[in-house]
């Protein structure tokens, strides 16, 4: 059945990312793609996944995807909403987050993320929004999932700026830290989910290697879209195709979201 579905690469990515979240995982959700995947997980196989957004909304269950990290929907459907300092101090830094789920503008071989700029810091070619919550999400969550579309512009040999630590410039930045730091520093990015494949860090070198290809995607396509000589795992699997239910739920979620955010601040919304 599911193989007959006409699934876009973007949907494939979202479904694969959503499956990475287990039920009852506490997930600190970045806006955009991670939010889409995390909510799909909650609406399908992982109904008790706990979603946390940096706006302070704890255990939220939005009916539509938020446009921003602080949409009212997130607060209205949350168990409770705490102040932003408490969110970062008690809930993230306090070690309560299982998975930090991030997007990025650039990612390199050692899973370092750049959302700061392209070029030189003082004379940037492109100025990006900056780190936001990511630098500490990536180091205070028990592990990190990264979700990003695959392109040579995005997957670079070395990021222009390490906004957010993956495994450092040489892959060793999470090793040999002070024991107290080690107790809090998570495993880092354990999966990178793209629209072409899934990558995981090599257990030895921490270099990202391809461990699964999405159905129909060739090695060549991944090599072409990756800015370093990408390696493949000894045994590369094929990502399971999305189920009809997953695609249906995802499309309904996106349609609801589209309708919700498209409107002006209508009377109907004011009344709700």
């Amino acid at each position: 059945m599911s193989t007959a579905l006409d699934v876009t690469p973007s949907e494939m990515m979202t479904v694969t990312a959503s499956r990475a979240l287990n039920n009852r995982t506490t997930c600190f959700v970045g806006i955009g793609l991670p939010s889409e995947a995390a909510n799909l997980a909650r609406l399908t196989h992982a109904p008790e996944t706990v979603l946390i957004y940096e706006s302070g909304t704890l255990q939220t269950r939005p009916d539509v995807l938020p446009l921003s990290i602080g949409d009212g929907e997130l607060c209205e459907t949350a168990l409770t909403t705490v102040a932003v300092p408490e969110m970062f101090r008690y809930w993230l830094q306090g070690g309560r987050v299982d998975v930090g789920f991030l997007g990025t503008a650039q990612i390199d071989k050692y899973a370092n993320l750049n959302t700061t700029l392209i070029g030189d810091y003082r004379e940037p070619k492109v100025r990006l929004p900056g780190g936001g919550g990511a630098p500490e999400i990536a180091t205070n969550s028990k592990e990190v999932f990264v979700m990003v579309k695959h392109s040579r512009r995005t997957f670079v040999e070395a990021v222009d700026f390490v906004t957010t630590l993956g495994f450092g410039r040489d892959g060793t930045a999470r090793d040999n830290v002070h024991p107290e730091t080690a107790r809090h520093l998570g495993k880092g990015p354990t999966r990178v989910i793209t629209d072409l494949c899934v990558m995981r860090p090599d257990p030895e070198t921490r270099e990202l290697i391809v461990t699964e290809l999405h159905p129909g995607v060739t090695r060549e396509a991944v090599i072409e879209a990756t800015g370093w000589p990408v390696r493949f795992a000894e045994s590369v699997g094929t990502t399971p195709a999305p189920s009809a239910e997953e695609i249906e739920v995802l499309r309904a979620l996106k349609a609801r979201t589209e309708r919700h955010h498209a409107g002006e601040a209508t009377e109907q919304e004011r009344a709700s």
Partner: protein
Amino acid sequence: MAEFLSLQEAVSRFVSDGATVAMEGFTHLIPFAAGHEVIRQKKRDLTLIRMTPDLIYDQLIGMGCASKLIFSWGGNPGVGSLHRLRDAVEKHYPVPLTIVEHSHAAMACAYEAGAAGLPFAVLRGFIGSDLPKVNDQIKSITCPFTGEELAAVPSIRPDVSIVHAQKADRHGNVLIEGIVGVQKEAVLAATHSIVTVEEVVDELGAGPNACVLPEWAISAISVVPMGAAPSYTHGYYPRDNTFYRRWDAIARDRDTFADWMTQHVLNADAQGASQ
């Protein structure tokens, strides 16, 4: 001791040229009306502090009010870049803008430390990040008990903080509900504070542990209905997402931006200014 003042009077009295100003509100309750009043009063050389600069600072920066920005995420959420911010950073237009860049965790802790009367904040942060290389305000500190190194940032202590809230009672006590962000911390960390509110009520109707700012912790209150639009006020009006999307085209071009600001901010009065 809160005084009820017109927004014009409040901004005129508490925001000086060269001041360090924090306007907070995390997506929710962004004090747009107050920001517009600062623009109308042509304040200059401000150090603007805000975790998520958003459209409000794109407007202030584009109108030449700021010479420095302390922030942690500068974008139009879910839409794209802040074009006026980028133009100021990349092209120094209309005036050069120095940026001091943190992470959200660092700024949240820095506000918290400011509210707590401390000179610096400690956090388990910036590990492996290049941000400390470009921001000399990020230092390290050693735990005197474990020897662990942690990050330290100076606390944020603005000359004036400006926030928007749902309501004040007649004494000037203010209730903030929903996504409360760092507003309480911003107000308590500042020397002066201006709170714009949707309305004044007889009773706040707050729960026993609600986020209430007592009037003796506030300098001025201005009643400004829709004072957070196009952002939103929980319980009053939703976020104008369409405007957030439209802003991208308005702000992309210098002239289009200038025209829009003239029409919707400079030529508007204090109460009708919020786009």
